[in-house]
């Protein structure tokens, strides 16, 4: 960082009068968003000129856009000029000094998930020196991947080490001007993950951000790009089940997946950002753009997500089925409790012939929570014999929560088969009593019933993740009944 100090000083000096203030030692830019902020970020990250141009283009377009209001969400106005768009990896002086300063409820949850103390500190943002014992694990892991020719690194590293790949694919799935939050991300993203699986390679292990994220704090505008070259296969896990705290309220990530001919990408997410307290205060806004491009024939992308966290979730992992015979899948469990809100679903855009898509969405709402499934199945003229099956089920706990379904179907080719099924049910006192009469405690019974409801989605998760997700669901909904 010290090498470009001079450049930054120039920049700072020059723009001071416009309110662009920064203390270089603090490594944090003052709140506010303008072209200088973006130039600062790009410079900090030692990016090539083309990337800065790309960011600026996104920013200029973003200025012409408005906050989306179509979602079934109640979002307080966000002041984009009040956000600081760059801060270096967290210094030890930030955040709580010890676990004593952390919300006891959060600690209780860690306890229940069986998270080791050191890790609890990391998750809660407590300053610790050696974060994980897993550094050595991560190293071995990297060696194995390198042998297979798999590239798995931070986005910044990829920009430096593999600029040709980044340049070729960045923004080709989610264009910089795609949508409000996507454009914002394109302008100011700080870091994220990059994966490239070479031709014919089956990635020897599941790739998990869990290993990568320890290295640095990726911040609130994360950018992920995964490319599966011809005949390759990768399974990618994002997030972790432990509740993550973050000082930043707004999170606007972009994830782009590219599957070339005969390639398969399986992308699994467990999202458990801090949802705020019981009154919904302080929770994270998670506004994510996730899209996959099944570019090659016979390619396949499968999204599986378990969304339990965040105060507001706005997220529609989608598939563009361009290649003939390509397959898109979306399996989702979304849980909203207390005052959480979620508007989530998927888009399946059928373009190629014989393309097929499956959507299984399970929504669970408890207490005052509101949740919507929003989905689009679009069959283009060119999509001969396209097939879609959609199933949306909602489970309500209590009588103050809500579930809403907004399925859109556009079929422009008469050879298409599109099926949609939807159910809404309430977790019954009868079901609970039945389990309790058999000796099963109420909380275990709730857990069992809810997990039964989500079974079709959980079976899509990698084994370890599935077990954790089940546990997590129980904890999220604890005390929600009765």
């Amino acid at each position, binding site marked *: 960082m010290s090498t470009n100090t001079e450049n930054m000083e120039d920049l700072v000096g020059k723009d001071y009068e416009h309110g662009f203030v920064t203390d270089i030692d603090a490594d944090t830019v003052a709140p506010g968003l303008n072209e200088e902020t973006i130039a600062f970020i790009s410079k900090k990250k030692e990016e090539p000129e083309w990337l800065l141009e790309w960011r600026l283009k996104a920013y200029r377009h973003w200025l012409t856009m408005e906050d989306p209001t179509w979602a079934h969400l109640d979002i307080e106005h966000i002041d984009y000029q009040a956000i600081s768009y760059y801060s270096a990896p967290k210094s030890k002086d930030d955040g709580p000094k010890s676990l004593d300063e952390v919300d006891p409820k959060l600690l209780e949850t860690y306890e229940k998930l069986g998270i080791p103390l050191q890790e609890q500190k990391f998750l809660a943002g407590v300053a610790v020196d050696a974060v994980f014992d897993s550094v050595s694990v991560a190293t071995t892991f990297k060696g194995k991947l390198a042998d297979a020719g798999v590239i798995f690194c931070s986005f910044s590293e990829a920009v430096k080490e593999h600029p040709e790949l980044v340049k070729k694919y960045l923004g080709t799935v989610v264009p910089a001007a795609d949508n409000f939050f996507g454009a914002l991300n394109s302008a100011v993203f700080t870091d994220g993950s990059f994966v490239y699986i070479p031709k014919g390679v089956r990635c020897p292990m599941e790739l998990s951000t869990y290993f990568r994220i320890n290295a640095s704090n990726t911040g609130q505008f994360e950018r992920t790009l995964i490319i599966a070259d011809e005949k390759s296969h990768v399974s990618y896990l994002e997030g972790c089940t432990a509740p993550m705290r973050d000082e930043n309220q707004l999170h606007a990530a972009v994830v782009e997946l590219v599957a070339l001919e005969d390639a398969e990408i399986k992308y699994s997410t467990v999202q458990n950002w801090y949802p705020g307290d019981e009154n919904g205060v302080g929770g994270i806004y998670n506004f994510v753009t996730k899209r996959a491009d099944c570019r090659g024939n016979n390619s396949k992308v499968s999204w599986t997500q378990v969304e339990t966290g965040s105060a507001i979730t706005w997220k529609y992992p989608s598939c563009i089925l361009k290649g003939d015979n390509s397959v898109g899948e979306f399996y989702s469990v979304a849980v909203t409790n207390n005052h959480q809100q979620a508007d989530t679903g998927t888009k399946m855009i059928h373009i190629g012939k014989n393309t097929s898509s499956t959507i299984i969405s399970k929504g669970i709402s408890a207490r005052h929570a509101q949740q919507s499934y929003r989905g689009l199945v679009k069959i283009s003229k060119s999509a001969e014999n396209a097939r879609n099956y959609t199933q949306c089920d909602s489970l309500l706990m209590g009588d103050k929560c809500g579930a809403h379904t907004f399925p859109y179907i556009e079929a422009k080719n008469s050879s298409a088969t599109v099926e949609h099924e939807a159910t809404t049910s309430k977790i*019954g006192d009868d079901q609970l*009593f*039945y389990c*309790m*009469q*058999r*000796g099963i405690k109420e909380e275990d019974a709730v857990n069992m019933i809810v997990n039964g409801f989500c079974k079709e989605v959980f079976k899509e998760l990698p084994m370890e993740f599935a077990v954790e997700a089940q546990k997590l669901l129980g904890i999220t909904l604890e005390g929600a009944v009765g």
Partner: protein
Amino acid sequence: MLKIENLHAKIGNKEILKGLNLSVNAGEVHAIMGPNGSGKSTLANVLAGRNGYDVTKGTVEYEGKNLLELAPEERAWAGVFLAFQYPVEIPGVNNVYLLKAAVNAVRKYRGEPELDAVEFLGLIKEKMKIVKMKEDLLNRSVNEGFSGGEKKRNEIFQMSVLEPKLAILDETDSGLDIDALKIVSEGVNSLRNEERSIILVTHYQRLLDYIKPDHVHVLSNGKIIKSGGPDLALELEEKGYDWIKEEAA
């Protein structure tokens, strides 16, 4: 084993049980009969601890403990089992999985080690024969898509695995054809022993052709108005309930 004294219970503002007395000793089978609306199912539900029933007066003593103070699952741990009149469906929850969780919850309470999958399968294999339980029902979701008879059989199967001390069968015979009734009855009979008490709640006498009770009680308007031996059931079958009501009035 079980001693109910002057039990009053209501649902909302409506009093259903109005001073019920009943004493059940270990090893006995008691049949509670009565017309619709007499309070039979309410009694079964109050004993199992279901929500929505208000006990306003009276006591229920079970093995020297105040049963009414226990949560439903605590009653189950202590050996109280209710075979439901309408067994509920729980989509996505494997029938065997629920039963294993139930068995292990009870074992945990008793301080016994939990059974692993292999031990558990060994246990249920035996029991399946008793109620002629079809194997495919085990791995289906709890009661989902079961026929009426299969549901009731599943209840008796659970009972045989859980081996309760006090089993309450709430209208287990309703909706069963004669073959299913026989199978269910055989299951219940095989579970009779000197320590286990069974309360059969039923509307019809026909169940008692297959399960011979030691005592028969007639419940009417929230009270037991007549008790007797197995002959009482036959008498009821012949004459209906009205004559007892008149006698009691």
